[in-house]
Structures are given as C-alpha cells and as structure tokens.
C-alpha cells in the first residue's frame, strides 16, 4: 500500500511517499534526511505531537504564562492533556523551564513554562 506524508520535523516539510506491507515500510522516497524516515515510522505506529498553550497566573504582570511539553505525547491524548493544563493556576512569578505538571497523565512528558512572568 502506498501512503503519503508531509514531514513536520522541520520547516522544509518534505513530501514523503512510503510503500507499506502492513505496518512495515518496504520503500521510502522524498525525505531529505533521516528524521523524515523516523517521523513516518512513528506516524504509522503511533503519531506523537507536542502542544503549546497557557496556564493561568495569579498576580502576574501578564494573566497567562505560555507552556509546552518537554516531550511529545500520543496525538490522541492531546485533549486529555489540555484538560489537565486547564486546571493549573500558579502564583507569580514563574520562570521559563519551571515544571508545572510532572509526567502529565503518565505520558512521559512534563508541562513546562516557556515565558517568565514577574509579579505585577
């Protein structure tokens, strides 16, 4: 079976075509680097994504601090993780790199602050 992918590992966005036998790749074309093959392999087995959003900050110069995950999580758990992040409320100050939730939902990724927010 032939499947087409757009690689999201870098801005080049290679169009990758793979020939599949079940879930085994028999041939791959279009990727300019090894990351492309790794991406497609992962995408076939269990697509993983990072997400970026915000958490509420109390008493800060900004009402929100941005967060992302330290690692990718399964794509189909994105909205479960969003629900966890939505519950977080932190007092200012917060700093880039602060861990907001360790190992969120046991998925092996931390939710980390990506922007310093000082006290107002």
């Amino acid at each position, binding site marked *: 079976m032939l499947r087409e992918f757009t690689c999201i590992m870098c801005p080049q966005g290679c169009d990758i075509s793979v020939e599949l036998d079940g879930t085994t790749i028999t041939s791959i074309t279009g990727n300019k680097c090894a990351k492309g093959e790794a991406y497609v392999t992962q995408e076939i087995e269990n697509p993983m994504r990072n997400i970026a959003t915000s958490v509420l900050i109390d008493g800060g110069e900004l*009402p929100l601090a941005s967060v992302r995950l330290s690692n990718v999580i399964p794509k189909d758990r*994105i909205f479960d993780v969003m629900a966890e992040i*939505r519950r977080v409320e932190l007092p200012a100050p917060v700093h880039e790199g602060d861990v907001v939730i360790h190992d969120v939902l046991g998925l092996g990724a931390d939710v980390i602050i990506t922007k310093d927010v000082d006290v107002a």
Partner: protein
Amino acid sequence: MEQWDVVVIGAGVVGSAVARELARYRLRVAVLEKELDVACGNSSRNTGMLHAGFTYKPGSLKAECAVEGNKEFDQVAAELGVPFKRTGKLVVGFTDHDMENILKFKAIGEQNGVEGMRIIDKEEIERIEPHAGGEFAMYVPSSGILDPMAYTIALADNAAQNGVKFFFDRKVTAIERYIANDCYLVHTPAGAFRTKWVINCAGAYASQISEMLGYPNYPVRGFKGEYFVLDKKAGEFLKIPVYPAPNDKGGFSTHATPTVDGNILVGPDSYVTEDWEDYKCTKDHLDGLIRDGSKMFKQMRREYFIRNFAGIRWKRVDEDGNVLDFKLESDQQHNPNTVNLVGIESPGVTCALPLARRAVARLVEVEKPQVNENFDPVRPAPKRFYDMTREEQAAAIAEDPEYGEIVCRCETVTRAEIRRAINNPLGVHTVTGIKNRTRATMGRCQGGYCETRITEMIEQELGIEPTDVRFNHAGSYMFTGPVRGAQAPGEAAEGSVSA
C-alpha cells in the same frame, strides 16, 4: 417620573445641533438615541462636505440652509474645536453635456447666493490640483471639508456641557400624548420619558416617528452609496474635492474627496435600497467605485485601500418618485408642542445648525423660555499630539507623562488622549466611539497594534469585564470570556484530533 421640557429623538448631526441650540435656553432637554453613540447612522456615513449650495432649488429649505450653514462654518468650527478646511471644490466635466449642466447649476448657485464660482480650463485644473481628472471645471471656492463624526460629537459634547442629557440604547417604540397633563410619554425598552415637547430628528426613521407624533408617514426612498477610504499616502496626491459634473437633476456620482485628516474618500455611488440598516458593502459596487473613482482621482490604487463603508440618503419623494425638499413643520393645533424634521439627508451636515435654529425657533415662539445666561458655545478641544510641534509634544509629556506613550502608532494617538476619550462628556465607551474621538485604529493597520490596548484601557478605566466591552452596537461583544480562569468556556469543550 422625571419631567423633561424637551425630548429630542435621534442623536445624529441634526439632533445634536438641535440639542445644542436648545441649551441656549433654560430647558430640561433629553436626547434619546437608539445606538450607543451619536452619528451612528447617515450623519457620519457621508463625504464630510461643507456644501456651497449650488445644486438645490432656489427658495428651498435645502438651498437656504446650505448657504447659511456654509457661510457661518468658520465660526462654528472655531467655537466647537472641529477640524475644518475651506478647500474649495472642483466640479469637473468632460463633455458638452457636462458643460451644460455645470453652467445650469452655476446659475442656480448664483441665484442661491453662492459666491465666487467660476469656470476654469484644463490648465487651471492642473494648477489647482494636478491629480484631478477633467477637461474643464467649475471652481467653487466656498466648499469645504470637515469630519462629520467629529462635528456631531462636538455639537453633542457642547450640548452636554451646557446641561443637555444624552440617553443611548433608547430606541423610541411609541409616543403617547396626555392631553389633560399637556405632556407626551415617549416609550423606549429602557423606560418612558415624560416631556412637554418632542422634536423629531430621527433621520432614516423620521417618517416612523412622524407618524407616532400624528404627522403623516412621509414616503422616503433610500439612495445608498458605498465608499473607499484611502491611506494618507494617497492623501498626499489630492488637496481639493473633485466632483464630476452633476446630472440633470443635480445629483453627483462617485467623487474623490480629501478628508481633514489627510485620507481620501472615493464614493459614493448611488442605488436604491429598502432596508433601513443596509450599511453593507458589496463587491459589484466596490468594483464600480474603483472604475469610476479612477476617473476623478488618478491614484486610485489597491495598495492605498484601508476601509470601506456605506451610507443611505433617505430622501423624501412624491408619488412619482421626485425628490422633495427637507420637511420642517410644527402644528400647534393638531400635534401641539412638537417639531417634525423629515427627509433630512444631504446636505444635512451643512444644514444642521440652520435647521436646528429654525426648529428651536418654533418652540421658542410658543414657549418663550428664559435664556440660559450660562450657555457657553465654546467646546474645549485640546490639540492632538499628532498636530503638535516637537516642542509642544515635549511640553505635553512633561505635564502629563501619559502623552509619552503612543497607543496608536499609525495615527500617533497617546494614552492621555485615549483616556480622555474614554471619559468623554457623553459617557460613550464603545471601541468605535473611542476611535471616532481619537482616530486610534483608523490608520493603515486598522487597530492591529492598538486595539488590544484600547479594550484593556476601557476595562480598567471603567471597571468593566472584558465581556462587557462593545465594538459599536449593543450586541457587538468582542470577547466570549477568559481563556483561563473562572468561567472559561473552554472547560466544557471537548475537542478531538483526526487520525
């Protein structure tokens, strides 16, 4: 229930002018407006011309008031602190028929008392305005440009400053006359107003109010026109309004006009509409404006487009569809203590104060009110930061540091000016209201930089929630709630990803 001496229905340019002229007497005056600000209808949806008065039938109220309003406007603008330029106007023609019409209306203008009109050749057009089209033209020195929104705000501010009360979000739904008590009850969804006098300045809706007062529901027809607003960069190419030769009835099609702020307006075209609130722009008409506007203004280029808008001239018409004069009437016998103004459209901005004086005279004749000795015709209007010299700017910041913070970059509007606008005498606090009082968000980025700051300032200054901020109309909420926190609606939402 509070007792008013006069209720003015409508806070357009005419209603605001009437309110200001009423403030010269010791009267308790309330102005009822269905929108959240003054001049939301056609008072602001026009070219902003101070008309000279050469296309109106001699002896008509339009001709009489236009010439009168034109002559006095330098003084009015100075009193009210309204930016105004007596630019003159070029009425350009290409054909023999154009010349015939231009000469016809030149003669009418002279009859109406318009001074200084003269026919000029192409060479002189070039000299006056190199970017104007046309083979020949009539030059009309008395025409001028003003910002009709700023003018209406100034009239209303000045009225409010002299004691008139403005009530917004008050659409008049019914008017009852109580003969025994010699008063009217003017009903709105937010309560009734008891008043001795009613003055109808309802603009597009004047015929409906007219009927509520006992006058006829005069037939009107809506002539809609659409506009382009061009960037100030285009404004550098045009210093004087350029109109095409009038048609046989004295109507003008698409023209190009500089604004007092340095933009260019191209439009309006003209077509009939039946919807009172039909202010939408349409692709066909905008395309038409690009085509026709290019004949008047050679720099009509897409890169200069920053905005579109539409207005409707609700003209009073007879059974055959012929356009009639403004209607100004009172009838002490059948509808006592009322003044009815219907079919006020172009040149309504030019005529607003002359009409207001005539309307108020009807009341004064009957009521003989005491003169308000404290009436101050002068409205304080601090200089804009943008218009100041560098030295003046430095001094302004030294006095009030908020002048140092530029909120709107395109129009160079400072935090001090926004704050002052939020605390305006009329209590208007829509985002559009702040825009119209400061020019913030009116520039080429259309609020991309400053709108987030302005909404935040409105919330902080007035202590209101983001969900209570309004863009222009009563239901024009800008935010559905916080992203995070108390009532964040996202909490209930369930999203999903695609396999």
